[in-house]
């Protein structure tokens, strides 16, 4: 709303630290509305921070070992934390108490490395265990159960299958539409599974990479960046995946990256990366042991390196870009959460009414009759002015419309991008319909209760 008043130029990437929250956090994620940050800590608890008041408003205590990942449901009502204590806990933030009520607990038989919600339905969950297995857990009554996602062994390898150990799955993410699950393996391939049928629909070997460490998607789901142990971030344009068929055919294709991002000087590895909401910028958090560095690359400008943000001496652990605006959250190994923003210089001209700032001198050309006094009486001129003013004021004003656009702006951006990426194939909607069945209670417009706190709350 106020973007037009603040800065007429498009907002680009953050440049400076706006604030630092002392939290003890290892991982941090913005919620989809961008108003809260969920921070997972190494003592097993998680905290929800309100960015308006810069205070922690909820404590999610339940795990006994450190939290390995946090995820938000699409309207920010549910938060899921996964932990080394073999559990995933889903918290309901609409509950009026602090700590909030646990909505569900899912137990596995190995430490959970990451867990994420399906983008359309928070009752479908993807979990990755430390043993290299990935599961889709469905909490809906009709589909209840957990299914392991298994890589289809390569053809012609049936004999060698037993001797060759299956490659471990090292990272797992839903794509933005939720139709597919992307899994990275220790042998450097990207496997694509259909969420509904749990069958593999593609295997992409990426040459030159070691172990896949992380993924991020551009919002429309057409582009993927991968982080791997060869310290390079690669960006790929994803092919269109056909819906799964009865023969369980899958694509076997090697993907060529469109861009490679790395640190040419120090060859530092990357901890995490995150796209900007419009997909034009990529932020990479460097695993530099001495300083806190975030590299920003300009995708729209052919992937050129744009800037390296320096966050001080505490090394970085995690990075996440704000879902709607030019802001980044990063965590340090001391547990501090840094919020980065694009600082706007104060426009002192705004304090005087009627002042407009211009960049260059504007030469004013007066009209021929601009300062003429209308011949005849002065009151004729006045009444003409009044008439002109009245006519201007007769124009209709709209005091109601336009609100939905603003509020749903974020949703509209996502939907627009999502639909651009979706195939216009009626069959593909089957996956979306399957996901929408038995929807969760995560509806827009739920409110987080403001809980009064006495005194100054530390953590």
């Amino acid at each position: 709303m106020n973007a037009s008043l603040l800065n007429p130029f498009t907002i680009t990437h953050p440049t400076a630290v706006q604030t630092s929250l002392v939290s003890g956090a290892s991982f941090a994620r913005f919620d989809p509305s961008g108003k809260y940050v969920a921070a997972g800590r190494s003592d097993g608890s998680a905290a929800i921070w309100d960015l308006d008041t810069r205070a922690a408003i909820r404590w999610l205590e339940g795990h006994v070992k450190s939290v390995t990942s946090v995820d938000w449901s699409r309207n920010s009502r549910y938060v899921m934390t996964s932990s080394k204590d073999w559990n995933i806990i889903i918290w309901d933030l609409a509950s009026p108490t602090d700590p909030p009520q646990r909505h569900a607990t899912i137990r596995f038989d190995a430490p959970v490395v990451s867990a994420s919600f399906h983008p359309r339905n928070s009752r479908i969950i993807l979990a990755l265990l430390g043993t290299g297995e990935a599961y889709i857990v469905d909490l809906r009554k009709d589909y209840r159960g957990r299914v392991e996602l298994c890589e289809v062994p390569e053809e012609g390898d049936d004999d060698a299958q037993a001797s060759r150990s299956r490659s471990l799955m090292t990272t797992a993410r839903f794509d933005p539409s939720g139709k597919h699950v992307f899994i990275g393996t220790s042998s450097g391939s990207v496997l694509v599974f259909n969420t509904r049928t749990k069958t593999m629909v593609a295997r992409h070997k990426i040459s030159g990479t070691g172990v896949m460490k992380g993924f991020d998607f551009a919002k429309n789901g057409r582009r993927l960046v991968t982080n791997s142990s060869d310290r390079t971030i690669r960006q790929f344009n994803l092919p269109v995946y056909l819906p799964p068929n009865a023969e369980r055919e899958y694509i076997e294709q090697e993907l060529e990256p469109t861009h490679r991002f790395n640190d040419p000087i120090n060859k530092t590895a990357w901890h995490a990366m995150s796209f900007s909401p419009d997909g034009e910028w990529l932020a990479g958090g460097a695993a530099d042991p001495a300083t806190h560095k975030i590299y920003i690359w300009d995708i729209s400008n052919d992937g050129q390196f744009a800037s390296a943000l320096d966050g001080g001496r505490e090394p970085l652990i995690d990075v996440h870009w704000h879902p709607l605006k030019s802001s980044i959250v990063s965590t340090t190994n001391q547990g501090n959460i840094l919020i980065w923003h694009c600082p706007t210089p104060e426009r002192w001209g705004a304090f005087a009414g009627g002042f407009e700032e211009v960049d260059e001198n504007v030469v004013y050309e007066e009209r021929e009759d601009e300062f003429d006094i209308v011949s005849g009486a002065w009151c004729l001129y006045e009444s003409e002015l009044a008439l002109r003013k009245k006519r201007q004021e007769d124009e209709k004003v709209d005091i109601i419309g336009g609100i939905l656009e603003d509020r749903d702006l974020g949703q509209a951006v996502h939907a627009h991008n999502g639909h651009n990426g979706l195939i216009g194939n009626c069959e593909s909607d089957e996956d979306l319909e399957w996901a929408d069945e038995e929807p969760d209670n995560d509806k827009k417009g739920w409110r987080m209760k403001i809980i009064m706190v006495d005194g100054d709350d530390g953590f």
Partner: protein
Amino acid sequence: MAISSLKFSPDGSLLASSAADKLVKLWDAYTGEIIKTFQGHSEGINDIAWSSDGEYLASASDDKNIILWSLEVNAAVKTLKGHTNFVFCVNYNPQSNLLVSGGYDETVRVWDVARGKSMKVLPAHSDPVTAVSFNHDGTLIVSCAMDGLIRIWDAESGQCLKTLVDDDNPICSHVKFSPNSRFVLAATQDSTLRLWNYQNSRCVKTYTGHTNRTYCLPACFSTTNGQFVVSGSEDAKVYIWDLQSRELLQVLEGHRDVILALATHPTRNIIASASMEKDLTIRLWLDESSIPT
């Protein structure tokens, strides 16, 4: 013992009123029965505001404090101290985690509701601040003061984004955003109401006919059954104009003193108005034809 402010709760079931007798009273909006009285301020109260969930009321008083009342526990839960002079106006943001207030110390303060602490102090004006409020998504704050200026601030950074000033700068007594936050309605003590498009600093509508020369009279939009602008007046009448044509459509007579407080119901065609010493009544004006049977 004038009644200074009236506000309907967000769901429309309750009406809250504040007065110079240091009390906040809650009434049933449909029957007019009194439900509760909150006591706690040591001086008269200037303004009240509801949180968006209808659970909390904030009241601003001449004792320089703002007290947050919880309807759930029926008691005061927080006292916000910080202003150095009378607090004149108060409002919640749509998320209700922030409160904005303005006072006779010429500053606008933004408060963290949960912890009861002042987060920002904006050096907003050079005269007492008469009205402050947030826009519909909580990103902007508008404030007006007796120096005649209307200023729009960025809620997150506290920077001033715009100043609206008319030629004469009459004392500005009330300002609020339109429901879609594209316009601000400003009441000034030259008996005029103006609707400003603050993006290009143009006044797009003017409403006259009432009297406003001395007191801070509130003005409201009424959008439940058509688009109207409603204002109180110092001649004891409530004026209703058509928003687009600026025509004075109706004058509600009944009060016997200056109308200091006005509120429009969020969903039904009900207007509540209240007045000063000579007439300590709160009147509810209904549109009979629109009441569901």
